[in-house]
């Protein structure tokens, strides 16, 4: 099957899918043809969802989570404990921790981890914003919940070192996480235990 004989819009969609992580040319073609045959409504729903994804989400200016408003619902929730800040790599990590219902403090999303191999330095993450926040807000404890792989550990170690000077209590999610494990994929029980067992660093 040569893609040259295909109509332009089909090729365009195949190429768009191919650009997504984990999707090769074969899967991209399969998805495109599936949508071509699917009811009009399903394709339009997908298109609308994609448009809203960018048009109707913002980064919360305070915690940098992805939200519909800024500040986000969590940042606006006055029943939550503003003295403790949980630092995570990705917005999905917030979802995972919220699911446990164990944590009632606030979040700070770094949007990645320091990764020398990928050329990501501290300046590429929301680390300066975290330091600024800790200075301005009544934070007493920072819980570092970055992933348990080398990048996550080194990021936690670096942030902990920067926060040491401020005299704030810095804790790390206990090693209940499977080694090399992502917060996002840890099950609720593991994550609850890790939250309870956090230790000072």
């Amino acid at each position: 099957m040569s893609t040259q004989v295909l109509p332009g819009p089909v090729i365009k969609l195949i190429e768009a899918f191919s650009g997504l992580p984990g999707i090769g040319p074969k899967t991209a073609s399969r998805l495109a043809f599936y949508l071509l045959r699917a009811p009009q409504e399903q394709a339009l729903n997908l298109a609308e969802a994609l448009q809203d994804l960018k048009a109707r989400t913002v980064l919360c200016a305070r915690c940098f989570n992805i939200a519909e408003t800024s500040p986000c619902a969590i940042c606006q929730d006055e029943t939550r404990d503003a003295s403790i800040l949980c630092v995570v790599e990705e917005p999905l990590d917030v979802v995972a921790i919220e699911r446990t219902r164990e944590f009632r403090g606030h979040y700070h999303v770094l949007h990645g981890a320091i990764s020398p191999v990928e050329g990501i330095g501290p300046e590429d993450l929301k680390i300066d914003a975290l330091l600024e926040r800790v200075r301005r807000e009544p934070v007493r404890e920072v819980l570092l919940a970055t992933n348990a792989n080398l990048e996550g550990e080194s990021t936690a170690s670096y942030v902990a070192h920067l926060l040491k000077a401020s005299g704030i209590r810095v804790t790390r999610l206990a090693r209940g996480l499977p080694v090399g494990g992502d917060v996002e994929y840890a099950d609720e029980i593991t994550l609850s235990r890790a939250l309870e067992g956090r230790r000072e660093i």
Partner: protein
Amino acid sequence: MGSMRIHHLSLANFRNYTRLELDFSTPLTLLQGDNAQGKTNLLEAIYVLATSRTPHAVAEREMVNWLALEESFPYARLVADVERAGRRQRLEIVVAPQNGEGGNGPTFRKQVKINGVARRALDLVGLLPVVLFLPEDIELVSGAPAVRRRYLNVALCQIDAAYCRALAEYNRVLTRRSALLRHLRERGGNQDQMRFWDERLVMYGSTLLARRQEAISALEGEAQTRQRALTQGREHLRLRYLPGIDLAPDRPEEEVLPMLEAARIEALFGEELRAGREKELAAGTCLYGPHRDDLRFLIGGRDLRLYGSRGQQRTVALAMKLAEMAVMTQALGEPPLLLLDDMMSELDARRRAALLSTLNGVPQAICTATDWSDFDEGFRARARCLRVVEGRIEEAERSA
């Protein structure tokens, strides 16, 4: 009873084997074949299953049969049924394109399974301990430092799971720390980032240094005995460990290294990193650590890599392989599986005899030869004799 052995090997699309099912029903197996028929590939398959790597550290893709590479889903599969301490296990490696799709030039990945369950490559190591003798073993003496480090790693990983884990972690830290040094050199940045990687490098690196120091001392004793026997008592072999950090900063270079505790090594390693910080930042790569280790072979004070004759280098390489065998046997409580690839043709009578006496003392050995006459009749009578022809294996008549 219950000694270590391989019972069955099954290959699909591994190098020149499209399909192979082979039982190892006898302690001794002798494979005869002309060059390029698949003798070495067969031993290599067992070696890959035992150590999770190829003897020459080639790319994964090269393990896959070249005809299979043309197919839409090219893969190679290696399976061994092994037994150790009365426990039978199935070791499996599949080499396949990373993303599951063909395309042009996909990267190939090894997937490891033990008893059908997906595991890490390092979980495989040590389940079927082997020692592989190759004609190229002379490079252990004449070749680059990386050859000597690989020799130490392969032996130590198979007898010490903690070493194997430390080595895997060390290599992961090394890549990232070098990337950070390069990043800092090229784009600048906060040097506090080094703190974490220094700690980890020292932690895993010191484990490697301490264990290598200990192993080299044990290997030296064994190799000395072998070298004396191989040279009728004429040559006294010394090994000198040249660690990638200075373990004796306050001693003159010629002195023998003191055996150090891991804690002392950690302290020295940490100091070396602090003292060498500017140099490493300027180089943009890791300059200190066991990845820079080397080993020197000395006879009468002469460095054999530089001044040894070919024959002398070959003898020392053989003594070192026999020492590897002995050290592994002590650690495991039984001899590892012995793999000999076309060794006899290169050796004189005395070296052959030394190798044969080792062969006779192991529960299982698999040997290859170009000529049947490389092994005497007595040996051939005790071995199961097989012929390798173009990636197929057939029983050979005893009289061949």
